[in-house]
């Protein structure tokens, strides 16, 4: 076994609550090296004799990447490990340095599209997964002090925000929020649209 070197450069990439373990390939000329991944949560370390749990989707895989999102499903400190396997021989485990907590995932602003349909202010938000809510801020241009907010849970299509005064311009921006880790992304760029109708009408 010792002939087969352990994978190197193992690291965790985590964006928007999707977490991946990656490592460098172990090169053995003329051979196909496979890998197996296991995880250990804080519970396993402290209450289950430091046991490790295999991830079947990443057992005997030839990929050098493993989607660990399904298993990193609590806001505690996790450890991951991977080893190389070639036939009957196995490399030592390579274990992540330190711990990984999903609370450190990087959160990107949501993809937002703002529409005006007559007097109605509408938004479309790209789905970011089940963990996400969206905090949408909107205001009438020039009345920046009177910002209004809506929290949207699920986004399936065009969501109605509010009605707009004739001819007025309204601006909208949104941030993603993950309740499970109590963190939010930065805001998306602000977008402004104009309501149908003529403001001069009010001057008559």
């Amino acid at each position: 076994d010792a002939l087969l070197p352990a994978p190197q450069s193992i690291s965790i990439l985590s964006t928007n609550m999707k977490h991946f373990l990656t490592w460098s390939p172990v090169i053995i000329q003329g051979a196909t090296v496979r890998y197996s991944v296991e995880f250990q949560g804080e519970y396993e370390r402290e209450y289950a004799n430091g046991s490790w749990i295999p991830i079947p989707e990443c057992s005997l895989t030839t990929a050098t990447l493993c989607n660990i999102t399904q298993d990193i499903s609590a806001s505690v400190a996790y450890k991951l490990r991977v080893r190389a396997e070639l036939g009957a021989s196995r490399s030592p485990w390579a274990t992540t340095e330190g711990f990984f907590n999903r609370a450190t995932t990087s959160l990107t602003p949501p993809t937002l599209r703002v529409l005006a349909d007559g007097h109605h202010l509408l938004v479309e938000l790209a789905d970011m997964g089940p963990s996400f809510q969206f905090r949408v801020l909107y205001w009438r241009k020039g009345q920046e002090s009177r910002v209004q907010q809506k929290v949207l849970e699920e986004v399936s299509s065009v969501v109605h925000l509010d009605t707009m005064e004739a001819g007025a311009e309204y601006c909208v921006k949104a941030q993603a929020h993950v309740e499970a880790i109590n963190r939010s992304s930065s805001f998306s760029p602000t977008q402004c649209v104009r309501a149908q109708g003529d403001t001069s009408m009010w001057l008559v």
Partner: protein
Amino acid sequence: TCRVSMSMAEIRAGFTAIKANIQSRDPIRTLSILSHPHSLHKVKSSDRCCITHQLFTFYVDKVFKHCRTEDSFVNRKISSIANSFLSVRRKLGQCREQNNCVCGEESTEKFKQILANYEGLNVTSAAMKSLGELDILLDWMEKSR
């Protein structure tokens, strides 16, 4: 009061995924760990925080470790629930330290009853039955939120 943010939906989803499997391993219809003879729904609101903390400690310390199965999918979901419970139990513990989670006589009695129910069975049966009753705990927590 003790306000603890927890992802109930994640724990629910984890349990729902294995509920049929776990409950099918519990053949005893006539005994319950959590709901009989006294229902959680009868616990006074002032005692709810304490009994929640006691129950999370009960599951972390006594239950999950005896629920390992031959099924990898089930084991992974149990790990997910156990680590979530650990995270929530820590926050509840902080409330206890700040005296926001006082234990009255009723919750002490109720928890004693739960432990007696648990110890009335062999450890694996008791642990599997307790895990199968997780929705009883979650239903009660959501209702009393």
